[in-house]
Each structure stands twice: as structure tokens, then as C-alpha cells.
């Protein structure tokens, strides 16, 4: 887990086929869903970056993860054919889709509208 300046870390929930709609629909802030899997190297590399963003922008956005291996129905619903893919949901609707691993600077730029 990434360390933040004040030493606390926002928890990043793991969504499932059962909880996905409820969690995404009830989020009050924009929710970044990280579609990932254990065998995906680039997914592992962006996980700490997303943790940092979640910590530093707590209050404006939240981050959650969906394991495509365990919950392929949700991955199929959003035509996920490549991971990592990030989808930003606002009021339950997908507003922005980012494909591929990126560095923190670039991710923050692309998420700027939600921060």
C-alpha cells in the first residue's frame, strides 16, 4: 500500500458482480473503476499510482477495483478487451474510459475534469 504524507491510506474496495451496480449507482463522488487481473503486469504497476491518487484526492474522487477474472460478466458488459482499463462513473453512468497503464502525471491530466 502506498504511504501518504499524513500516513493514512484510503481503502480501495473490490467490486463484485453482486455489488457492482449498487456501489457504482450510489457513489456520491466520481468513481474510477480499475478493471484488472492478477496476471496483468501493467495493472500491478498502476495500482500504487491509483492508491496515491485516491489518497491525495479523497473527497473529490474515489477508486474501486474489479477483477475481470473473477467477474467476467461485468467486464463483458463494458466491452473490456484490454487491461488495465479505467472507467470513470458519475451518477452511475460511464463518463470517461482510459485504456492502458500510464504514469501519475498523465493520469492526473486525463482525470482533471473530475478532480
Amino acid at each position, binding site marked *: 500500500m502506498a504511504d501518504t504524507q499524513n500516513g493514512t491510506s484510503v481503502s480501495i474496495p473490490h467490486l463484485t458482480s453482486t455489488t457492482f451496480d449498487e456501489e457504482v449507482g450510489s457513489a456520491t463522488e466520481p468513481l474510477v473503476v480499475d478493471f484488472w487481473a492478477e*496476471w496483468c503486469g501493467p495493472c500491478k504497476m498502476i495500482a500504487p499510482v491509483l492508491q496515491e491518487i485516491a489518497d491525495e484526492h479523497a473527497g473529490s474522487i474515489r477508486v474501486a477495483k474489479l477483477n475481470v477474472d473473477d467477474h467476467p460478466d461485468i467486464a463483458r458488459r463494458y466491452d*473490456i478487451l*484490454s487491461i488495465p482499463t479505467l472507467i470513470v462513473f458519475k451518477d452511475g453512468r460511464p463518463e470517461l474510459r482510459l485504456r*492502458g497503464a500510464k504514469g501519475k502525471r498523465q493520469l492526473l491530466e486525463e482525470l482533471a475534469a473530475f478532480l
Partner: protein
Amino acid sequence: MTKVRDIIIIGSGPAGLTAAIYAARANLQPLVLEGEPSSTSDQPGGQLMLTTDVENYPGFVDGIQGPELMRTFRAQAERFGAELVVAKATRVDFSSRPFGVWVGDDEYRARAVIVSTGARALMLGLPSEQRLLGYGVSTCATCDGFFFRDEEIAVVGGGDSALEEAIFLSKFATKVTVIHRRKELRASKIMQDRAFRNPKIQFLWDSVVTEVLGDSTVEGVRVRNVVTNEETDIPLAGLFVAIGHVPNTSIFTGQLQMDEAGYIVTQPDSSRTDVDGVFACGDVQDSVYRQAITAAGSGCMAAIDAERWLEAQHDAPDEIVATQSTR
């Protein structure tokens, strides 16, 4: 004033991390700018981060996973005191010493620089390929193969990487077509034998992809036979591109001598570039061998070359002075 270090290493594949191990053990406290996460091979750990089984790296009788091998390289560099930073160098200035390296607005200075930024996979360069990237067109077979379970897919290319991807993808797909522009493969004999024996792998010779078809996801490819010029549409769910590599050298344009393909030119039997005090190792200066072991070997050479060069410069002042290029 910015702290002046002995060595900055740009890039963290087998070449950069081997240079880091040697430089750290020589007490040069290297700073390694590892790069940033990416879904292409231009990323921390380099091209092995997107591979699975590495069977030809000496010392691992049963093979080792690419990302695991790189984790051990990194840990070994860290153990001897290398400073590793997940950041991508965005600009360099080799025209004066100490050399300048920037990550955005952050400035770093060093007496010697080792360039090991590697190479990344070449894409076809079709607009339709860009449009469908992530929707059936993939740059990472190990990441995305899973999504093509029970589907028909294709791999473009005829080298070892193309066959490795085809064999890996045959675990998921019902059929993998290898599309190659010639009638024979460039790949090693052992990979060819494995691919030819694999019942799920088929070959489409003398053919190039001219268009990726599909509205929201890949539905097929248009292929032109380079002998007959005949065009055919093949229905497919996924396309993996492995047609070769391009060196990651754009930030060194105008700073270091490169060949016409963009590879950094090093002097024979050495890692020296045309700028005194700047060394290059690994795939960024090697379009011939391109192996993890040769990259690691040349990383070791670069660290030793840099160490000896620094020793010879021992009395040099720390203020910025113009460098002399041999160009």
C-alpha cells in the same frame, strides 16, 4: 544548486538495472530513472514485463517469468544502494557538464549518464489500428489474451516475439493466424518447430494487414497478398502486433549520434557514445541481438566504462562547462 551525482541511469530493463548493480557496488550511488507505467514495453522493467516464460536466461534451469526476473534485478540493485525512481526522463542536455536530465520541471545533474531506455514494439501505423486499440487490437498478449477465449485471432509478424505471442495466445483462442509479409519466418528454429507443431496455429504467408475492420470492437482484418495483390477480409476478434521494435530515443535527438533507424551509435567494443561521459547499453543501441542477456552484459560494460571515465575525470570541477563532441 541542484545536487550533482556521479551517475544517472535512464531506463530500468536488464541493461539499466545491471549497470545500476555494478555502479552501486562501485560506490557511485546511481540514480535510476525507471520510466513510467505503460502498456507498451517502454516502462519500468522493460520489455520482459510483458512476457511470460523466459527460457534462455542462464541460471534458471526451469525458466523464469519475465516480470519475476526483473523484480530480482531491481531488488539486487536496491540492495547495493541504487536509488530507483518511477519517473520518466522528459528532456536531457548533454551539451554541458555536469549533464542535465529532467523529469518534467525537476532537474537532475550528473557527471556521467548511462542511457538504457530500450526499445518498444512497432505498430502497423494504420488509423483503424489506433481507433480499435484496446477494443481488440492489443499491444500486450499477456494482459489481453484472456479476453479472446474461444475466439479466432491473429498475430502479425514473423520473428521470435510473434511466435511467442501466437503460442501463448493459442492457450485461449480456438485459432491463431500468424500473418507474415514473407514466405519464411525470421524466428529461431526452436520457436518455428513449436509453432508449426501447434494445431491451433495457422500461417498466412506473403501477406500484410491493410485495415483493421470493426465499428466498436475488432471484427476482422483486411489482408493484401504482396505477390498477387489480392485483398481478402478475414473475420477475427483480436489482433496482436509483433512486427519489430523501435528504439526509445526521441529525447536524445540532436544530443547523441544515432543511426538511420534511431538506435544510439556506440563505439566498437565499448558503451561510449559520441559525447564524452555519456554511455549507452541494451536495446537502445542494439538492433542485432536484442536479448536480456546481451542487454545485461552491455549494462555491465557501461557501468565499468563510466566508472573508469569518472576516475579519469577525478580532478574535473563541478561547474557547468561545455562538452566536446567527437561528432
